[in-house]
């Protein structure tokens, strides 16, 4: 068996979902309301009384950034407002358990499992196939078919490529290809749906390895006929391990002297670094953000690790198909085109138009989810399942991480500019807010940039954005920040957010680039996330971070000299900005560490 780097993590166990607690929810709602109230009070004071009229060029962008950031806080409080896990149900056996037979003959349900692949190592895909084959189901007459959907067309035609088809045949599963890559993954799934007939279908990526109880724990939800899909958490089991600082020093300096090595161990032995260095752990997202959207029926599909009702997916595809033809007809009628020409044009479009179950888009999952939620006729529901039912591989180098996250950002922003959920009819207010929240989060680099640059501007211009850093400032700012921290802690109870917070700040540059790219109208491409390690030099990715940290440090040194010599016009401002800078530097430095990270030779 081929050895992969992740084999040493095979024994890792997934986290247990945070148990629901109504008292904690109530406390969160209480602190959330206080936080919002204090936030409004703080911003009222900031806009009304605190702006420095002599430096409005500085004061206004900062207060605007603070206001936008506060809006994010409000959105988060709404997102986390309550929890409503769907009721679990036993796995389904017969078709009548998931849909109205309407006079048809009863039969056992059929389930398809799609493993989408493009260029991943065939032996890696083999492991996903084998795990899919190991899924248990209590009813032997339920058909469970596994399909490898190979968009890389590795069926032996190209001798330079590995042969995926042979692996599929060896494993006794179906193998499907198409002769083009139109629509990327969504197109691949479309092709699969055209050639299969499962009542339910599971979507897996090439590296998604399902646990044996995946189907047992998820199909029961479909007893409710409105449920269109169930998403399970994506758990990355290969995130980097915490390393002892002493081990890192020994390995980097190649210390061979056992006494020196022992000394380093004694001094630094308890300090650990580099745990999940790429901030890949998505637990906060799945176990808090997405799970709490169950309350609004707004949990969206994230692709791999989800199971879908075919009828729901197809209903959207047909609706889109019919709508586009209807739109054309309306346009032609409005242009007073003759009826026979209308018919001709309609027929031309009819032939061109395809039935597309998943939107052909870089963010096909969220886009399709929005449209299914907006279907007024069917009122489809989604479920974010709390427990981990599969494991996946995370990005293992900064370059891959950036590409993946830029695709998420650009995809979501593209939806915002082209088909903003706020204006989509059929979505409930809660759904609109939740989808808008996702999109809004990608605008964060705009105000994060202001927060990162503000101390530098202060250090080098000695201008204050506020009239003074007085007691008034602290009186309004500190209670708000304190309550904000308490509220967010309660919202993500039991989940470490340290790394996520750092990445929220330090990814500002890449998210900004994604935003500009969408604003410029660039097409959002579907880049397949590499599964493996690619330790390329990542210096170009961290140049903005190095520049900001350098300027910040220079500013601190310059202002320290001024303070020591007694020339500084605002010492309180210096100290306030100094502490602010420490936070900025810690947040930014994670990206520099991630860029430099490589597994130790001892690994």
């Amino acid at each position: 068996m081929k050895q992969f780097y992740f084999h040493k993590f095979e024994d890792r166990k997934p986290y247990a979902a945070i148990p629901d607690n109504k008292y904690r929810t109530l406390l969160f709602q209480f602190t959330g309301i206080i936080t919002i109230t204090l936030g409004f009070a703080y911003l009222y004071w900031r806009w009304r009384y605190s702006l420095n009229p002599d430096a409005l060029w500085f004061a206004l962008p900062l207060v605007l950034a603070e206001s936008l950031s506060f809006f994010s806080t409000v959105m988060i409080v709404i997102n986390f407002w309550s929890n409503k896990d769907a009721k679990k149900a036993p796995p389904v056996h017969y078709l009548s358990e998931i849909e109205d037979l309407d006079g048809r003959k009863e039969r056992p349900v059929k389930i398809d499992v799609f493993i989408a692949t493009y260029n991943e190592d065939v032996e890696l895909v083999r492991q996903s196939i084998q795990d899919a084959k190991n899924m248990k189901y209590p009813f032997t007459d339920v058909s469970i078919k596994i399909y490898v959907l190979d968009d890389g067309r590795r069926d032996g035609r190209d001798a330079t490529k590995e042969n995926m088809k042979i692996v599929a045949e060896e494993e006794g599963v179906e193998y499907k290809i198409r002769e083009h890559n139109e629509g990327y993954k969504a197109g691949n799934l479309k092709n699969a749906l055209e050639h299969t007939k499962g009542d339910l279908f599971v979507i897996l990526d090439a590296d998604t390895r399902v646990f044996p109880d995946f189907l047992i724990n998820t199909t029961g939800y479909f007893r409710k006929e409105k449920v269109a899909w169930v998403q399970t958490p994506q758990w990355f089991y290969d995130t980097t391990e915490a390393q002892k600082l002493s081990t890192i020093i020994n390995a980097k300096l190649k210390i061979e002297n056992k006494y020196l090595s022992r000394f380093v161990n004694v001094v630094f032995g308890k300090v650990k670094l580099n745990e999940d260095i790429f901030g890949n752990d998505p637990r906060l997202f799945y176990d808090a953000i997405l799970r709490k959207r169950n309350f609004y029926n707004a949990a969206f599909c994230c692709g791999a690790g989800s199971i879908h009702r075919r009828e729901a997916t197809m209903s959207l595809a047909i609706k889109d198909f019919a709508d586009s033809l209807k739109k054309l007809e309306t346009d032609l009628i409005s242009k007073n085109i003759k009826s026979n020409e209308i018919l001709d044009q309609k027929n031309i479009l009819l032939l061109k138009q395809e039935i597309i179950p998943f939107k052909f888009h870089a963010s096909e999952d969220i886009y399709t989810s929005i449209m299914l939620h907006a279907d007024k006729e069917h009122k489809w529901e989604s479920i974010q399942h709390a427990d981990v039912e599969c494991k996946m591989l995370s990005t293992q180098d900064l370059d891959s991480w950036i590409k993946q996250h830029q695709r998420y950002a650009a995809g979501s922003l593209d939806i915002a500019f082209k088909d903003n959920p706020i204006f989509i009819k059929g979505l409930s207010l809660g759904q609109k807010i939740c989808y808008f929240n996702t999109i809004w989060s990608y605008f964060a680099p705009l105000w994060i940039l202001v927060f990162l640059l503000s101390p530098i501007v202060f250090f080098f211009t000695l201008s204050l954005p506020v009239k003074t850093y007085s007691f008034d400032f602290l009186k309004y700012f500190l209670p708000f920040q304190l309550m904000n921290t308490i509220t967010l802690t309660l919202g993500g109870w039991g989940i470490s957010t340290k790394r996520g917070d750092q990445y929220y700040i330090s990814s500002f540059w890449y998210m900004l680039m994604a935003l500009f790219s969408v604003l410029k109208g660039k097409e959002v491409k579907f880049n397949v996330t590499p599964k493996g390690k690619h330790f390329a030099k990542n210096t170009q990715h961290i140049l903005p971070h190095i520049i900001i940290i350098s300027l910040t440090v220079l500013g601190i040194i310059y202002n320290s000299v001024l303070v020591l010599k007694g020339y500084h016009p605002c010492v309180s401002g210096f100290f306030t900005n100094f502490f602010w800078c420490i936070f900025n530097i810690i947040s930014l430095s994670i990206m520099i560490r991630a860029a430099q990270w490589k597994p130790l030779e001892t690994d």
Partner: protein
Amino acid sequence: MADTLEISLGSDQVLQGLISDSPKLKMESEKKINLFLKNSVNKDNGNMPVDSLDKPIINIKFDEVFQERGEYSSNELSGIYFQGTQYFDFKNVYFINNTGIANLIDLVKSLLRQDVVIKFVNVSEKIKDKFKSMGLEFIFNCS
């Protein structure tokens, strides 16, 4: 293009509940289509010789028309081809799901490429309503 076509549709997910296995039912369907056509022709084209409608129906394998789709069962939808129009009898179709509708759209497109128009006859009100609710009433020519 063959003189007459009979399109086999089917699979329990494509046109679920479609019952035309029984020879008796099938014959009735054909009679119904023929009656429909005779009425249409008498109304629309009085010069058309009625005898020409009684040609035997030729079965054409499903894959010949729908190569891009596979895995269909042997269930058949009674149909007849006449003067550029393919008629299908929906008399015994009492249920159709979304995958089935998607397949019908493919059917319409496939035949349109061959300049053949499709008409569905004896469509129940329930199925007509379903087509209408999905905005397909102008794609599917039903009566």
